[in-house]
């Protein structure tokens, strides 16, 4: 029996389908990301699981129990809202402690767990502040601590790290993953950052205009995207023209190599180059059209604009998308 099951879940606002026939089964302890562009229905899906948005059709089953119409306060989930939704009249510690108070946890135990949760999100020094005295990223971490502290069986996170700097975000991703592995918390995280979705999830659900487009492991989503849209959404891609009647072919920029002119599959001219720190990013013009290539910054001199280079690739890395799915 799956831990959580969404069965043709649908939410309609007037004529707009915010979420349309979303089906998903989540196993106990799994980390799932909902990934998709702004407005594709990620928050709506999460809010239906949480019980704040009434599903128009379909069912939600948690451990076999139909909770589609169960009241939100009977579901026992931990939630981080996209807007944080902190209690403005309570201190940081008060916010984090609220869920424990509702569970009638003893005072001493509460203090210990609140302290632990705040340390986890690096906010132990801010316990007595009020939310309006915190920065956006600090508020977000309070929201995270508030959801984690109750150790819910299912954690719903709506872009829980969107306001953090790169370093803190990485640390929090690590913590989320850690908690999930140690405590076995099943987690559903909404994000529109593909790198984040890839780095922490067991499986990624890619959504577009309210519909699920692909459910797969991060590697599969990146290497074998089901549609043209996904291919572009989860990374950069080069379209390689093919003979008429044959399907369109794609290859990712990091699968292309720059070699000496004449020794590659095609010759190209460097139009522009960008320095990304760990990588060089090139725009090339060739007979195959515009090409983008990323080359690891291994310390060797980069190619100057105007240089003619050869472009090489392994045919095995070339992807074709099934006709009609693109």
């Amino acid at each position: 029996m799956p831990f959580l099951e969404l069965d043709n879940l649908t939410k309609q606002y007037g004529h707009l389908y915010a979420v349309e026939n979303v089906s998903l089964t989540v196993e106990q302890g799994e980390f799932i990301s909902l990934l998709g562009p702004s407005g594709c229905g990620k928050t709506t899906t999460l809010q239906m699981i949480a019980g704040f948005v009434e599903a128009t059709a379909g069912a939600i089953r948690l451990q076999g129990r139909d909770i589609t119409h169960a009241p939100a306060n009977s579901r026992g989930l931990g939630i981080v809202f996209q807007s944080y939704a902190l209690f403005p009249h309570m201190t940081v510690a008060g916010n984090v402690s609220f869920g424990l108070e509702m569970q009638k946890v003893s005072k001493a135990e509460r203090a210990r767990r609140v302290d632990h949760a705040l340390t986890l999100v690096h906010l132990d020094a801010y316990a007595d502040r009020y939310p309006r005295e915190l920065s956006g990223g600090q508020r977000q971490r309070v929201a995270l601590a508030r959801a984690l502290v109750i150790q819910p069986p299912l954690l719903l996170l709506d872009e829980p790290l969107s306001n953090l700097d790169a370093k803190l975000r990485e640390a929090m991703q690590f913590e989320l993953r850690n908690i999930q592995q140690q405590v076995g918390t099943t987690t559903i995280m909404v994000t529109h950052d593909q790198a984040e979705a890839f780095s922490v999830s067991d499986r990624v659900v890619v959504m577009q205009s309210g519909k699920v487009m692909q459910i797969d492991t991060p590697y599969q989503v990146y290497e074998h995207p089901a549609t043209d849209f996904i291919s572009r959404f989860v990374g950069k891609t080069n379209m390689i023209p093919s003979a008429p009647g044959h399907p369109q072919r794609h290859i990712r920029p990091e699968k292309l190599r720059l070699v000496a002119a004449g020794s590659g599959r095609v010759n190209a001219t460097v139009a522009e180059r960008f320095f990304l720190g760990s990588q060089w990013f090139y725009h090339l013009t060739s007979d195959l059209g515009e090409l983008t290539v990323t080359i690891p910054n291994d310390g060797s001199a980069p190619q100057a604009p105007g240089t003619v280079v050869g472009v090489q690739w392994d045919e095995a890395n070339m992807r074709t998308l099934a006709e009609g799915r693109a």
Partner: protein
Amino acid sequence: MMAAAKKFSPVWLTLPSLALFLVMLMTPLTLTLLLSFNEYDNMKGAVGGFTLDHYWKVISDGFYLEIFWRTLKIGLLTTLICVVVGVPEAYILSRMNRPWRSLFLMIVLTPLLVSVVVRTFGWSMLLGFEGPINQLFVALGWGKSRLLYTEGAVIAALVHVMLPFMIIPVWTSLQKLDPQVEQAALSFGASRLTAITRVVLPQIMPGILSGGLIVFGLAASSFAIPGLLGGRRLKMVATTVYDQYLHELNWPMGASIAVILLLANLVVMLTCHRVVEGQYRRRLG
């Protein structure tokens, strides 16, 4: 030159209201204050001079103390009932859907659209000895009772007209709430009631307090309603001031009572203001 003009433009802009404030409010207040220190002569009325006799009389005479006590009691009870009725009403109102919300808001506001005289005579007819309520009592076999000219009648009529002053500020602070904050409380396992008492109420407390202040201030200085529904015996401070001026012709006495009422109201307001500032400024901004 330009910068200086810019800097002072706020001052110029406040001039009209400042002038109005000085002429229409400060002048009569100052005159009243001065009048309250005048000596009073039975035959000649206010005769100038300086005395604290009237103030002394007000705070030492049981007759006046009773009136002040009654005014305080009626003011507080009216405020309390307005809080108890108005806050849930505002909450329900804010949860209503589109067409109903504006309709019910209009209904809440209707007492303000009816002249106080008409409204109060409506209450007199309703509560009168031969009025429909007493007829209902008779039909139920309870017999008639005197409803008019009681504190209950005054409070009922005051609550009726003051409710909008309670509901509007509470409604305004409810509008400012993020509905997701209440949802967050529910998601952490709070019951509806707990979510309201622990999360919604504390956030709208400033609204409740300012509504309460308006209601208390207006109720404690109300004149027409206690005048018409309280009758000759059931005096409140404002009606007593009126009596002193127009029946006793003891203007200095009326002035002292008015000044004391003003001071009492000010003390209540400032105390509440301090509470609000201290308690909620840091949290809710």
